[in-house]
């Protein structure tokens, strides 16, 4: 079996597993429990995003215009001291996607999507519940609640994820290093599949630090046979503190 075929087979197993799980719950759970755990019917036509992806090219950023407060916040940024990476903390989903080599795995289920970013072991769960308010959604990454809450939906073949309730701080350290974010940062991510490539178009809105919404576009390609490895970051290894001259 070719590696590429192996990748396309993997999601089928997940779908089968999900179907078996749903059937088991329906057969054994009480009516109340069944109501609470039944998957929501998918909205729109589900995109074929299942698989493991790597960045295909450098991301592009458009309409980036900081407010005076944003300029001041960025001017205060010192990469060696303020980069959350140094503490093994992913700044934002945009920051995570900017990381080139660690791949990203997407697994679609009837009522949620799992996005497993190898970078910093970010395992994101996005409910597909269009009527769910972001404030009522669970934290998208249990391990990193500062990344906020996500809600997904399908628009045609595009998976759309809205994210909010993030913690104020550093937003990005790679694409444009030192970009800040307030707790009002709201993003809309559009996952657009195109065969073995996928675009993720992220529109960022944060009136505190940005004059207008800015857009970062990522282009991914499939990594046949790829799998997500543990990242196991430790602050001792990630930080440059050990290199600073002793005071």
């Amino acid at each position: 079996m070719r590696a590429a075929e192996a990748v396309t087979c993997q999601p089928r197993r997940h779908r089968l597993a999900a179907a078996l799980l749903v059937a088991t719950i329906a057969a054994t759970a009480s009516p109340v429990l069944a109501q609470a755990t039944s998957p929501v019917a998918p909205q729109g036509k589900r995109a074929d995003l299942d698989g493991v992806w790597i960045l295909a090219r450098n991301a592009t950023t458009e309409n980036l215009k900081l407010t005076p407060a944003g300029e001041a916040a960025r001017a205060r940024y010192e990469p060696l001291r303020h980069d959350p990476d140094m503490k093994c903390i992913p700044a934002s989903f945009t920051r995570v996607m900017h990381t080139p080599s660690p791949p990203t795995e997407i697994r679609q289920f009837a009522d949620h999507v799992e996005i497993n970013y190898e970078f910093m072991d970010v395992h994101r769960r996005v409910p597909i519940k269009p009527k769910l308010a972001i404030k009522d959604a669970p934290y998208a990454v249990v391990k990193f609640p500062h990344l906020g809450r996500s809600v997904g939906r399908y628009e045609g073949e595009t998976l759309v994820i809205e994210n909010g309730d993030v913690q104020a701080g550093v937003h990005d350290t790679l694409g444009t290093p030192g970009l800040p974010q307030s707790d009002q940062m709201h993003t809309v991510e559009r996952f657009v599949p195109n065969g073995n490539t996928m675009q993720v178009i992220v529109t960022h809105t944060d009136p505190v630090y940005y004059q207008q919404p800015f857009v970062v576009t990522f282009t991914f390609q499939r990594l046949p046979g790829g799998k997500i490895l543990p990242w196991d970051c430790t602050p001792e290894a990630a930080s440059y503190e050990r290199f600073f001259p002793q005071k």
Partner: protein
Amino acid sequence: MLTRSVTAAILLAALVTAQRQVLAHHSVAVNFDQSKQVDVTGTIKEVVFRNPHSQITVTVPKPEGGSTDWFVEWSDKNALVRRAVPFELLQPGIKVTITVNPSRQLPNVGYFSKALLPDGRVLRDCGFGAFRQSVAKQETVSCEPQKQ
């Protein structure tokens, strides 16, 4: 296979510099001066291949006597494994010359560019750019060390 290796080598030469400038976990361009190269010659004291970045410690003798340690940062272990970089060739105790881009702020810290091994071969990192190009073409990138 030879053609693929040659292709990978060309891609390496064309892409590794450009890609590394923007594609690293901590921005290499922000932290390291890629307009400069420093040869660090000494004995490897320690190698730690890990995420988010690997580190090679090299003990460098001083002309006036004594020695100083240089810290060489490199890609994350997962990336090196995926790119099949034979990083295990770098072992404590061997004498090497590692060419680095020096840190913009910190003394004796640099980012790995290449390593001259005791047998005269040069170990490089094919880089993420070459890796993803090879994936797109369903080829295998080769990072085997080459004679200088």
